[in-house]
């Protein structure tokens, strides 16, 4: 058992993660639902009473409880991985990435899951931290609902079904991501 735990405690390669993601999508379809995580954000708005002020949130959110339970599983899965299966917090990014981030003043790139200097509570009171966490989160919530899905709903579910709208959305994801990474982040990270 210990050997097994040690074995799965290593970082998992892409050819394990990709197929598991496809199997998750397949399982949800077999259970009569579909794979799309950002729908939970709309459901949560409804639960908080957004349906009273906006008809978009006035729907039977109880039909989405299964998806909220799935999201609850994500939190537990993250906790299990963190507590039992991750002996080192190191992220195995390429040397080129480490060098680039060094040049932008990010301390010890890859030494933890997220850049510690940005992902902490005090950072919210800095311009950089506020933009990256609050504005960033807002854009995710607004953009996914506008596009009708996120990475799971469009990039995985939609492209697996060869749907053109999903391809357009994924092209959009990359345009936005490339613009941010190459044109905005160099200024934002050095603020």
């Amino acid at each position, binding site marked *: 058992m210990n050997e097994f735990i040690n074995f799965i405690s290593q*970082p998992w390669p*892409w050819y394990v993660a*990709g197929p*598991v*993601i*496809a199997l998750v999508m397949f399982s*949800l379809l*077999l*259970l*009569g639902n579909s794979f799309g*995580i*950002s729908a939970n*954000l*709309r459901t949560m*708005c409804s639960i*908080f009473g957004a349906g009273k*002020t*906006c008809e978009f949130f006035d729907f039977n959110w109880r039909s989405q409880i*299964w998806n909220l339970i*799935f999201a609850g*599983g*994500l939190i*537990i*899965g*993250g906790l299990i*991985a*963190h507590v039992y299966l991750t002996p080192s917090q190191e*992220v195995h*990014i*390429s040397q080129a*990435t480490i060098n*680039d*981030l060094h040049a932008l003043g990010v301390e010890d790139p*890859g030494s933890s*899951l*997220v*850049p510690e200097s940005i992902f902490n509570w005090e950072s919210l009171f800095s311009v950089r931290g506020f933009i990256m*966490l609050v*504005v*960033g*989160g*807002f854009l*995710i*919530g607004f953009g996914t*609902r506008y596009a009708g899905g*996120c*990475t799971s709903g469009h*990039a995985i579910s939609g*492209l*697996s*079904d060869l749907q053109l709208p*999903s391809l357009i*959305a994924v092209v*959009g*994801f*990359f345009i*936005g*991501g490339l613009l941010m990474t*190459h044109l*905005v982040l160099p200024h934002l990270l050095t603020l």
Partner: protein
Amino acid sequence: MKILRYLIIGIIFGITLAKAEIISWYRIYEMFKFQSFHMYGVIGSAIVLGIIFIQIIKRKKMKSIDGKPIEIYPKQHSVSRYLIGGIIFGLGWAMTGACPGPMFILLGNGVGVILVVIAAALLGTYTYGLLRNKLPH
């Protein structure tokens, strides 16, 4: 007990994305810098296998476990909605290094401040709901 299945699938998904480092801000940055194959391998292999699964479902006319035919609804056709919405999402994805799934997984990993990102995403979703009728779709 039906609901437990979703919890277990979610746990498997959460562990996988954590262990493959997909929830790391650095991996998303690296992907948009084209400095590693890792993320492309993850997404690419998921799609290739996903295409095979969905073709099997369609050709065998498979039914879900409660006996209903599995229906995969085609998304409505439009360009502006998917392109503009997609770009807005992509900007946020590269900034926070997390899409909606990883946000929840990061919370389990003890990154508490991600709660603020989730709250901001809820506000963004709500704002979309308010502006929906004024936006091109």
